[in-house]
C-alpha cells in the first residue's frame, strides 16, 4: 500500500505535465487575445502588436510553453496579465471562499443525504420511497440559479434571515462566515444530495438482502443498525467515488453559485480569466484543479481499500 501510494504520488508529475501541455494548447488556440481586450473595440493593429510584444505573446508558442514550464518547476506559475499579481497568490486568495463553500455544501450534503438514504432504505416498501425518488430527481434537475433565486427570495428577501449575497472570511468570525455561506451551500448541496442519496439508496438496496444482513438481524441487531452499519458500509464505494469527484470539482469552483452569491472564489476567477484571456491564470487554475483531482482521487482510491478490505492494489 505504501508502495502503491508512492507510485501514485509520483504519477502526479506526468499527469500534470500532460495537463500542462493540453491546457496550454487549448488556451492559446482559443481565439481571443488579451491585447485586443486591453486595447478595446477601436484599437489599431500596430498598438495590438506592440502590446503583444510587451506581454511576450509574440514569441513562438513552444518557447512560451517552455518558459512557463520552466517557471513551474521553481514553483512559479507566472503572473496575471491584468493585475500582475502572482498566479499562485491569486489562487490562494480565491481558495478560501471556494474551500469554505465546498466544506459547507459537502457537510450539508453528507448530513442530509446519508441519513435520508438510510431512512428511505428502511422504509423501502412504503410510499416514501417513490416520493424520495422524485425529490432527489427534482434536486438534480432543478437549475441551480432557480433554486438559488427561490431561496434568496424566500429566506433572504421576504423573511430576511440570510444575507442575499456576499462572503465573509472565517477569520472575521465563524458565525458571519456560516451565515453567508449557508444559502449557497444549500443550493450546491441540493444537487449533490439528489445524486448522492440516490446513489447510496440504490447501492444499499443492492446489499439489503445479502446473507450477512440476516446474520446481523439474527444477532438481534436493530434494523436501523443493520442498515446504518452493515448495509451502509457495503454500499459506500460508489458513493465515496461521487463524493470524491464532487469535492475535487467544487474546489475547482462553481461559477453559477459564486456569481449568484458574489463569492469571490476560484470558479469566478477561472471564468473571469477565460473571458479576459488571462493565460497564466487560466493555466494556473487548471493545473491546480488537476492537482486537486489527482490528490483527492488518490485519497478516494486508498479509501476503497479501507471500505472494502477485499480491494487490494498490489
Amino acid at each position: 500500500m505504501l508502495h502503491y501510494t508512492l507510485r501514485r504520488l509520483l504519477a502526479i508529475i506526468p499527469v500534470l505535465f500532460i495537463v500542462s501541455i493540453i491546457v496550454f494548447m487549448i488556451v492559446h488556440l482559443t481565439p481571443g487575445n488579451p491585447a485586443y481586450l486591453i486595447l478595446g473595440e477601436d484599437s489599431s493593429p500596430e498598438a495590438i502588436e506592440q502590446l503583444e510584444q510587451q506581454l511576450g505573446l509574440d514569441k513562438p508558442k513552444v518557447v512560451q510553453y517552455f518558459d512557463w514550464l520552466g517557471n513551474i518547476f521553481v514553483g512559479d506559475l507566472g503572473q496575471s496579465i491584468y493585475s500582475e499579481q502572482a498566479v499562485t497568490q491569486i489562487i490562494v486568495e480565491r481558495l478560501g471562499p471556494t474551500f469554505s463553500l465546498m466544506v459547507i455544501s459537502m457537510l450539508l450534503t453528507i448530513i442530509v443525504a446519508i441519513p435520508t438514504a438510510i431512512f428511505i432504505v428502511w422504509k423501502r416498501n412504503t410510499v416514501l420511497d417513490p416520493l424520495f425518488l422524485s425529490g432527489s430527481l427534482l434536486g438534480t434537475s432543478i437549475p441551480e440559479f432557480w433554486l438559488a433565486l427561490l431561496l434568496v427570495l424566500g429566506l433572504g428577501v421576504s423573511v430576511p434571515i440570510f444575507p442575499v449575497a456576499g462572503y465573509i472570511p472565517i477569520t472575521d468570525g465563524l458565525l458571519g462566515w456560516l451565515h453567508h455561506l449557508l444559502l449557497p451551500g444549500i443550493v450546491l448541496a441540493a444537487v449533490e444530495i439528489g445524486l448522492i442519496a440516490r446513489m447510496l439508496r440504490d447501492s444499499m438496496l443492492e446489499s439489503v438482502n445479502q446473507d450477512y444482513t440476516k446474520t446481523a438481524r439474527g444477532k438481534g441487531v436493530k434494523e436501523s443498525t443493520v442498515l446504518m452499519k452493515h448495509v451502509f458500509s457495503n454500499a459506500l464505494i460508489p458513493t465515496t467515488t461521487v463524493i470524491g469527484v464532487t469535492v475535487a470539482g467544487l474546489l475547482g469552483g462553481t461559477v453559477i453559485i459564486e456569481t449568484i452569491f458574489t463569492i469571490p472564489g476560484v470558479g469566478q476567477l477561472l471564468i473571469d480569466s477565460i473571458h479576459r484571456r488571462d493565460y497564466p491564470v487560466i493555466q494556473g487554475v487548471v493545473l491546480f484543479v488537476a492537482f486537486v483531482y489527482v490528490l483527492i482521487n488518490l485519497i478516494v482510491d486508498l479509501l476503497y481499500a479501507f471500505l472494502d478490505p477485499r480491494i487490494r492494489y498490489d
Partner: protein
Amino acid sequence: MSEPLLEIRDLKMHFPIKQGVFQRTTNYVKAVNGVNFTLNKGETLGIVGESGCGKSTLARTIVGLLKPTSGDILFEGESILQYNSKELHQLRRDVQMVYQDPYTSLNPRMRAGDIIAAPLKAYNQSNNLRKRVLELMELVGLKADDYKKLPHQFSGGQRQRIGIARALALNPKLIILDEPVSALDVSVQAQVINLLEDLQEELGLTYLFIAHDLSVIRHISDRVGVMYLGKMMEMSDSESLYKNARHPYTNALLSAIPLPYPMKEKKRERIVLKGELPSPSNPPSGCVFHTRCPFATEFCKGNVPTLDEGNDAGHFVSCFYPIENKQEEFARQ
C-alpha cells in the same frame, strides 16, 4: 500405471498479513507450505484435512486463481505457471473447478441455465446449447423449470448442483471439486457421486476431490491425501489409508467420523486431539503436528519429517513414528 496428468512440486502459497495505515506486510499466512503430489489420468485423489489447512488454497492455486509463492504445477507435463493467456484459456477447458461455496460462486444476476451454458459459449459449443444445458441440469438433479431461476431462488444444495453442472459442461480432463457435496442431501449426494463416477468411467476424467466427509472420500477416491497446516501428512490409496492409517492425525480423523447409527454413535470412543491449535502464520517447528500429537517426542519438535514411502508400497507418510498395523483396531470399530 497411467501417465501423470497433474504434478504438484513443492508448492507454497503464502498470504501476506498486512497491518497499519499503510498496510505493510508484517507476516505471512503459510496456507500451503510445500506440497508435492502427482495425479494420474483417470484417477481420483481425495484430499481431506483439518478445516483451514489449505485445501481450498491448493485448489485455487492449481486452477491459476492464485499465483503461488514458489513451487511448480505441471499439467500434462507442462508448467502452467508460465502459460500466456491464450494457453491458459485452453487449459481452462481441461481443468474445471467446483467451488466450496455455492452462494458466492454464482452470479446473482444470471439465470441458472445461463450460468451452466456460459462455459459452453466460451468455447463456442453453442449448437444445441439449451438441450445440452437441460441434460446437464437433469444429470445433477435440477428441474427444467429451474432453467430461468436466479441463484437466490435456490436452496443451498440446489446451488451447489448448478456449480457442478457448470464444471461438467465442457467435459474437462481434470475437475477440482472443493467440497462439492457437503451441502447436498444424501440422496442427491449419491446421485452426484454416481454421476461423477460414471463420467469418470466413460470419459476418463480425473478428479481432485476435497471433502470433509470421509465416507464420501473413501467411496470415490482411488488415493487419499491428508493435509495438516499446509502440508501433506499422509498419502496412499484409499483402501490402505482407511484400513491402515499410519499418521496419528489421520488416525484421529478417522476416529472422529460420526456414524449414522444412533446407538453406536453415542457410545463410541474417539481420539480427542489436545493442545493449542497452531496458527498457519506461525507454524510449529519441526513436525507441524507435534503440538497436538499424542506420540510426539522432543525429536519431533526439532526435526521436520518428510513424506516417505514406508513398508507399504504407495503409502506415504510424513511421521517419525508412524502407527503400524492399525487394521485390527479399525476392524473392531
